[in-house]
Each structure stands twice: as C-alpha cells, then as structure tokens.
C-alpha cells in the first residue's frame, strides 16, 4: 500500500525517503545501496523497509 511511516524494528522515521528512493533506485538507475547510504538510512532494519516495499495504492484505487 503506502510506505510505512516508521521502521518496524527500530522505530526510526523512514517514510519521507521513499519518494526519493523510488525515483532514484526503483525507477532510476542508481544503486539502491548507495542511495540509501546517501539518504542516511544506515541500519539494515530500516533499509529493508525501503528495499522490500511495493506501492499498491494505484492498483487498489479503482476499487474504492
């Protein structure tokens, strides 16, 4: 659905990095690891929040 606001494990706020990460690493060509380092998402618990996320809002939208 939407990117979780916080990391499930440590509670650090990660949601604000998603749009950047998506543009640069998911749709862009940059290396995901380097982008996460650049965004300051350092712990692997927070990194998996971004790496494993899929936006489903657009898929769900027609079925309201």
């Amino acid at each position: 659905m939407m990117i979780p606001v916080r990391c499930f494990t440590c509670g650090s706020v990660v949601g604000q990095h998603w749009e950047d990460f998506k543009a640069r690493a998911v749709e862009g060509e940059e290396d995901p690891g380097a982008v996460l380092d650049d965004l300051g998402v350092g712990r692997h618990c927070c990194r998996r929040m971004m790496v494993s996320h899929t936006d489903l809002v657009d898929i769900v939208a027609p079925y309201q």
Partner: protein
Amino acid sequence: MSTEPNSVADAEYDVTFIERGPERARFLIRGITPAFANGIRRAMVADVPTMAIDTVRVVENSSVMFDEQIGLRLGLVPLSTPPGEFEVGESVTLSLDVSGPDTAYSGDLVSAEDLVQPTVDGVPIIDLKEDQRLEVEAEAVLGRGESHAKHQGGIAVGYRHLQRVEEVGDLDAYDAEESHVLRGVIEEDGELIATEEFDHDLRERYPGKELAVEDVPDAFVFHVETDGSMTVEELVSEAIGSLEARAAELREAVQL
C-alpha cells in the same frame, strides 16, 4: 549531560562525546554501573514522554485506506515536544485537509499549537486520486513510550562497554592472520577511537601484532538517536530527570 556547569563537574561521572548531533550522538560515560547504564537506557526509551496523535475524528475519508489505517499512520508521525511545556495527558489539536489528486503529507498537518509541529514534513500519509478527499481532526496527547511505541522519543538507544586494546607482542610471521572484528569504541593509551576508523577490524590497525582486548570496567559508550521530537541532549537529561524523580518518590514513600 545537563548544560548547567555544576552538574557534571560535581559528580564523579565523566562524559566524553565521540559523535554529537542534534538527533544522533555517541558518548562515553565513565563511573556508572551496568545497572545504572541500563536504567538510563530504559528511561530514554519508555519514560520520556513525547507528543503523538492518539485520537482522530474523521470528517471525510474517501481514500483507499480505512480510517484506522490513516489513524495509525498519523499517530506514528513524530511531533516536536519541548520538555516541560506539557503535562502527561495534555492534548493539542491538529487538522489535515487534502483533496485529490494529491498526496497528503505529514507536513500538511496544521497544529493549533506552535510548539507542537510535525518534525518531518515529507512522510506520505495517503495518495489521493481524483474525487478522493481526506479531512481529519486529530488530538495529539503527551504520553510515555511504555504505553505505545509512538511515544518513544529515543530510537535504537543502546550502549556497549568501552574496550581497551593493548599490544602484547608480535604475531609469528608465518601465522595466518585472522580478522578480529570489534564494534563500538576502543581505548588505546587513553585515546578514544571509533571502530569505523579501521573498518571494525583490529587487524587493519595493528597488523602483525598480538593483542589483548578487555572491557573497561564501568565505562559505557551510549548510542542515542531521537525521532526528532526533541534533541539528544534534551532526551538524555529528561531521562536522567525521570530516574531522579523516581528516586525522590521512593525516598518519600520510605520515610514514615
């Protein structure tokens, strides 16, 4: 930790900062017991109250998410909480009104109180399509981390022993060197070195040396991060203040 001149100097505690930022810091405290170190850690996580949205009145929600999902997401948005300004249980009203096609962000929250504002503006709450609209009124309440994780001011708060590394001799020239991974901060002749400097591998810093590594008694390196609701300094001094308040309460209860 307090900035008052007499508090640190008068006690036998010795605090050294290794890394110091507003929302992230590492510091060494000497002269505390493991129990006290853990007390401070637990107070930072569970005892320092922060503001978080707790009740949401939904005026209109035609988005694809249920009201309670929106409520959870709003609750997790960190809100600035100046220490001492509010009592636990006191509330502040915030409102959010976004019409699609647009994305509702945490920064769209409008607070009735200047002191309590979302500290991160760019968290997407919900993506709204054509004809979708989200209008809510929310009550943020001051609560403690022990009641809900959204009230935790400290994130990934922990501590490690300070480790002392000494060279005790040379390794046999024909021995295969094994990696010696260490994380945290080491002390070498009184000098503090973060292990990041040598990629956490002692072999990088002391090639061909035989080493003795031991924990320094009663010296702990704290790693403290906050969610932005207050600075590290405020968080640590509030945590220590809460321990002090508990001790005072106990003394009062013990006296007849």
